[in-house]
């Protein structure tokens, strides 16, 4: 749930999503769910000349499994807190009996 928790804080921030088919989409993160499906608004495709079919698309829903990277706005990431959250996640994972 760490990533879900993390991405929820980025709602309404501008992110760039890089898909596994190399398309990069920049837009405002509108919503994310536990599968890390992503909803973007006001999107803009980087290298628009290469993907003209996406030039008229205004918003997208991206299935989480096709995302390769999400480029984050560094200013809105609290690294210290994220470190702690990661530690907690790791601790709870370790504590969980398998």
């Amino acid at each position: 749930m760490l990533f879900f928790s993390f991405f929820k804080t980025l709602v309404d921030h501008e992110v760039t999503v890089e898909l596994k088919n190399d398309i990069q989409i920049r837009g405002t993160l509108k919503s994310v769910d536990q599968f890390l499906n992503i909803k973007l608004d006001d999107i803009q495709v980087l290298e628009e000349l290469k993907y003209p079919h996406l030039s008229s698309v205004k918003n997208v829903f991206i299935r989480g499994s096709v995302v390769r990277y999400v480029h984050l706005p560094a200013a809105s990431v609290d690294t210290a807190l994220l470190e702690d959250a990661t530690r907690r996640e790791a601790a709870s994972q370790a504590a969980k009996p398998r």
Partner: protein
Amino acid sequence: MSFFGFDTTLPKDRGHPLAAPGFGQVQDPFAHLSQGANNEHDDAIDFDDTYDGLGDHLDEAGDDFNDDTFGGGPGANRQTVGKDFDFFGRTAEVSDAIEEEQLRYSRAHDLKGTSLGRNQVAPARTGYEKYQALEHVSDLQVDQNLWGEPEPQYQQPVPARKMMSLDEVEALMKSQKKHAIPVNQQQVVSREPTRTTSGYSSDTPYPDRSTAPLSQIPSQGMYNQHVSVELPATLPIGSQSHQHHPQHPAIFQGPDHQALPPGLASSQRSIAQQPSSHRMSGQQMPLNPQQMLQISEAGREEFLKEEAKRAKRNHKIMLLSKDNGLMTPQDKNFITRMQLQQLMAASGSANDQDPDATLSEDFYYQVHRMIRGGPRTNPQQPLSHFAQTYLFQTGSRHNNRKANRGADNHLQRMEQQVQRAVEAAKAKPKNKQLVIEGSLGKISFGNSKTPKPLLNIKRPDHAETVSRSRGAHKEINTNSRRAILKDIESIYSSLMKIEDEARKEPPLPTGAASEPGIVEQHMAWRSGMQALNEKLWSALKVLEPIDPTSSVPHPFIAMLSFSKGKKVIPRVFRHMSSEQRVTILTMIVIHLDVLDVVRLGQLQPGETHLPTASREAIDLFSAAVTPSLFGYVSEAPLYNIMGLLGLILDRVHVQASAKTRIGLSILTMLTSRAILIRETGATDDGEWQQWTQLYNRLFDVLEPVLSQIFPGSFNSGEDVYVWQFLAAMGSGASPEQQQRLVIAVKDRVMETVTQSKTLPPDMAAQRLGNVNLFMRAIGLDVELLG
């Protein structure tokens, strides 16, 4: 083109005839008005009104070649071949020939059962023999006279009436009032006995037909033909006198129910409305024909309207109901639970009963929202400050948030509703694997929280792991990077535990009135905190013995060389007692020249700038660690300061440390604190004497390197800490020492002043201000140098 003069348009092109019954028929709600206006005439049928005139639209052209086709020439027996050519009769004439041909064929092919074939043909003819003899086909044109007789049982379709405009309706209503009154009286008289004698019981629909209003009779047939077939017999002959009345707009529009006495009309309406009240249950059966007869025309209309609606609705239900029973109630419950859980997860709901669980599940989001939810004055806030915010607000904000949740009330209600479902799901032990009997494999499930494990590696027992790692720990070089990182992580884990515990601090017992339970609770919390604190303290490894001969640094100092080790200091300090703090400070001060920020903070020969990595490390140290240390030093008594300075002078390479930013700032910290204590007069002279001795030692050690403590170039503008140090030194110095100070840094001062003249005014002012820190400390000013 029409071949036989028929209308060649296909039925679908023609559309549904407006006059025909069915859905296409437009119901005219005002029809009864016009009917009422002509009430006294509507007991007869006017052909002109009932004939739809379709015949007039027949295409009579295009039959020019009919004669060629059917053998009729101009003037030839036109009487025999008309438009109504008798195909059957003509074919029957040649049927013998056809038959002979057939027999000949069957014989030629020597078919079996020829006699049978013959028998088959023979009966086909029976019944039609009379046509054979028919030489003359009579003209089947419809005799117009036939239609002279009113035949209400063969209903002419209601002519398509044009809908009346509002004006027309009003006019009709007005005229109707004039007409209606006398008619009413007439009808009441004729009806009265009927009602009083037998009422409207179902077994005697119209006990006295002759007294029933004539106008109703034809209209009954409109809806129920088989009933009305017998009615013409009862029609009075007199009705014929009206049959050709030209100004009948509509005959079959039903009688005017408004013309009836109000009481009667309402009772009839109530019958008609009964079905509508039952309609919702969908169990209303259509009235049987006899019941239908009892209801007045208007009531029936209404009823039929309702009936049509009901039928439509039932049809819809029928269409939808084909999927009924597809899911069992259990299935539905399952789906609902899934949806609700999804909703819970999506809304990031705080499980109000267990905020800790939520916090651990969704830690980053929850805390981030608490921190960033509030106004943040400066986005460039240093991390330490930031972490402070995070800790201080965690407890209080959490409670506020609960109180402020009135806005999303519906969500809350939903959550409450969901909670039971979720808890039930949690309580149930999850079977992660399904082994279907007889199958070789097993199906494992996963959900978002516990994904399906792709690898199933058996973990060794926990105890075993611990013992092994401990054994390994001894073997591994304690200074190895991995070991240090692990040590830091253990600090963090105990730190987080202590922070969690601190958040749960029970309310302080207030005075004598406090309950014993609260006190007990508080005591328990205290002891818990104490235990955690000890754990943290041991994790810090501050008290590990110092081995001066060892080449490896002390574990605590080694931890400080990592950025996350530096970052943890401010958080640790918050939970440290005063003694623990001074111990940490002492450890740092003793190892001042071993600290990475001091070791790597000196400019190597030929370097003008520090490497980026060490610069970042220094920035982080001064942002994270120094403030914590300073926080302690600024409250420390003089003897502590003296002790620390003594340690530095005894055990640390002061000259090397002074060439670094961190080393110098720690020296500044100590000296300035001593001077502050002196100024507040909180010291006695004996102590001050000791301090002056220490100060003199420091001065003597540093004097030779005073010109070298400045960082690289002038232009960097990073030398403010040096001027701060010089100012601290200068303010504590004797006049003779001040002289020596000025001589040592004179070149730098002059250089800075001349340099600043070439700079933009604001930068120049900043540089001169830095220099002035020192100059003012010794009672001078850069203006004097001008």
